[in-house]
């Protein structure tokens, strides 16, 4: 694959992120204004300096006008993008490439989603005319991801009770982390008994095994790496970006076993190659991953190379991915604590890397982190899009 990457060619020099939650009092416009205003709140950048915008949203707006109108952006290019739950990441990726190729000096990526206004629990997808035969039309996302649990237990001979404990640990850990994050929707640690005993949603997934829905927005400004220090003394350099759309064949291919996301494996390999990473588990300082449902995070630990196949459930239980573990995963609290405003989540993950690499993560601050990973996936096991980014504190030695 000729994925050359743009290692160290661009840098993030400003970010903004709203609190995530039930923003009954704020509209999509308000969330966008809040995120962009915070992003440009430093002295270094003015709106006039942003040459182009990429806006990610799945269901909360159509066209570039979704961003340009509330912010009164004056005749600038605004691209609206959608890629399921990787939508915010996709906006970021495109903005990075626009600057890296020299088309613009400065680009902004913005992600927004307002899900609570629908009145429904779970994501509401636009209905498309269909023959009514796809199980995706009626079965829910928790159901789709719960398929991982029995398949994983069967393949690796994991005692379902142990798997249940590992799933509980994922939710427990992310809520513990989120409790230390003032921007999270849910800011309470949750006892393991409560997680394990929560009302069932799908398969063995209870309420606490599922990320909630919420409203939120986040934004980032991207410039050429050599210009970064004009705007901040602590920029965040982009080391690798990979977005993979799979062939979607898992649900029709008996060769797929529902214990992995092949798209994640492919996008991780691509991003690691771009970033020059040879051993992710030891080289990364932190990882923000798509913990939409607790078994997802367990499988991701293997797909991203943090644990050998069939071992992640043990490492999860051993605390390897806790805030004080060998590789902190979702130090900001993850989707579990933030909820999942689709267009905003990818940028929210980058925001945590931004804070951590700059030493601004407060109570959750890790000890001198240097490399961070963010990961999103959208779709379902066997048919998804996956995004992996690697961001770093320093330019690599040439």
């Amino acid at each position, binding site marked *: 694959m000729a994925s050359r990457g743009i290692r160290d060619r661009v840098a993030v020099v400003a970010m903004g992120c709203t609190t995530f939650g039930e923003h009954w009092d704020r509209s999509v416009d308000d969330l966008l204004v809040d995120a962009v205003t915070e992003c440009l709140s430093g002295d270094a950048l003015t709106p006039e300096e942003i040459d182009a915008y990429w806006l990610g949203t799945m269901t909360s707006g159509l066209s570039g006008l979704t961003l340009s109108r509330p912010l009164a952006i004056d005749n600038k290019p605004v691209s609206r993008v959608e890629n399921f739950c990787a939508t915010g990441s996709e906006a970021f990726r495109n903005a990075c490439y626009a600057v890296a190729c020299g088309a613009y000096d400065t680009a902004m990526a913005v992600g927004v989603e307002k899900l609570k206004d629908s*009145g*429904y629990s779970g994501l509401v997808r636009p209905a498309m005319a269909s023959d009514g035969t796809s199980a995706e039309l*009626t079965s829910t996302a928790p159901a789709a991801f*719960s398929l991982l649990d029995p*398949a994983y237990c*069967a393949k690796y001979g994991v005692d379902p009770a142990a798997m249940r404990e590992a799933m509980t640990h994922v939710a427990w850990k992310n809520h513990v982390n989120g409790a230390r994050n003032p921007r999270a929707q849910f800011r309470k640690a949750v006892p393991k008994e409560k997680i394990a005993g929560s009302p*069932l949603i799908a398969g063995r997934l209870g309420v606490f095994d599922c990320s909630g829905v919420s409203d939120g927005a986040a934004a980032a400004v991207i410039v050429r790496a050599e210009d970064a220090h004009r705007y901040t003394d602590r920029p965040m350099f982009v080391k690798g970006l990979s977005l993979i759309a799979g062939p979607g064949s898992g649900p*029709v291919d008996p060769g*797929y076993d529902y214990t992995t996301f092949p798209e994640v494996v492919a996008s991780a390999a691509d991003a690691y190659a771009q970033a020059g990473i040879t051993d992710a588990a030891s080289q990364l300082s932190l990882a923000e991953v798509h913990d939409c449902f607790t078994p997802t995070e367990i499988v991701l630990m293997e797909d991203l190379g943090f644990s050998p196949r069939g071992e992640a459930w043990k490492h999860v239980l051993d605390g390897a991915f806790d805030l004080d573990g060998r590789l902190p995963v979702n130090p900001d609290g993850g989707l579990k604590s933030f909820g999942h405003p689709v267009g905003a989540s990818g940028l929210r993950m980058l925001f945590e890397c931004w804070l951590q690499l700059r030493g601004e993560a407060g109570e959750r601050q890790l000890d001198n982190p240097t490399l961070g990973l963010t990961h999103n996936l959208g779709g379902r096991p066997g048919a998804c899009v996956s995004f992996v980014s690697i961001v770093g504190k320093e330019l690599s030695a040439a």
Partner: protein
Amino acid sequence: MTQGIVGYGAYLPVHRLEFADLAATLGTGSPKGSRVVAGFDEDATTMGVAAARPIAEGPIGPLWFATTSPPYAEKTNAAAVHAAVGAGEDGFAVDLAGSSRSGTGALRAAAAGGGLAVFADVRVGMPGSADEREGADGGAAFRFGPVADALAVPVAAASLTAEFLDRWRAPGDLTSRQWEERFGLEMYTPLVAEAVARALGEAGITAADHVVVSSPHARTAATLASKYGAQDVLPLGHAGAADLGLRLADVLDRATPGQTILTISAVDGADATVWRTTDRVGSTRAGVRAQLEAGRAIPYATYLTWRGFLERELPRRPEPERPAGPPAARNAGWKFAFVGSRCDKCGFVHLPPARVCASCRTVGQMTKTSLADAVGTVATYTVDRLAFSPSPPMINAVVDFDGGGRSLLELADARADEVAIGRRVRLTFRRLYTADGVHNYFWKARLMEESDGQ
């Protein structure tokens, strides 16, 4: 009549309404016995398909579909049956929708010129009514062909028609009404006597080896069964337009070569037919009694919900959209007959059919193949308690079919504690849901019992 029965099938849903539960809820009726009940995802069309599909291989000729509970008005229900039995586009299919007598109508039409007579019904009575207790849901199908291939041949038939108020239902009403019982009995008795006398006379016999009586008028049915010596009456409530077919199928299940069968139908007149079995009888069986015995109880509240008498709160989810006409028409082979495609190059099976092979990426070298009769294995599964379903929770399974092909399917007639990786399944044609008056028909998987073989 130039054609005989060359194949027959019958279908009884697995669900049973136990009268003990009904009596406990409503405080009425006797707590003994049960009735056969269609699932929330079953209707006349799906049960007709279930009865007909096993005997519908090859060109089927005209298809006559009889029901008193047509899922659609102003749309030919027989067309969906025709598609789902894999008949493609070739041939005539029409509804005989109305009274229970349309069952006789379908038999007569198919016997006259060959083809497939399909009957199915969902019989609904007001909660606590005799109709509720004495109804039955199910389907039957008879295939007619050359006498030389037949297992039973109609040798004589006679009919009388009388206009009087016995049982009626206004369009749009869920349940029917009936005039007082003694009136119906007095009207039917002489009509049936005349029809039977003519049919027996034409057949040149004085009595038949088997007698089948079918009538929505319960007292008439019981009286006639006794009068004409019907033995070993199928212990099934009245199944509407499917009733005569189910009872004839039950007798054929037990008949031996060279016997005579007298079928009597008392609906808005009287129809009597004499059949003679051939030495082919017994070559296939529909297993009516076995199906009747294999049922299991559902709570009365569930039954009431399924039939629309008990409205329950919907999940906080968007309701599913109705299927759209053009994609449903484009994909009719897939939607109605589970036709996928097999790659000519590598053999990978695609469900639904694809143009580009998911395995070897070859473009446009595919052969259509139906997996409607295939057997598969559960690869993984879930119980979805959040999904919109007419009868939650929805159970979904990833099914890998023997010989290739995978599909994520809803499980029919299953309980959450029964599904497991490795369970074997077959397919069944069902109604997923109804939206904006459009019935969304598709296939579900059904767990096989060990007795199902394989």
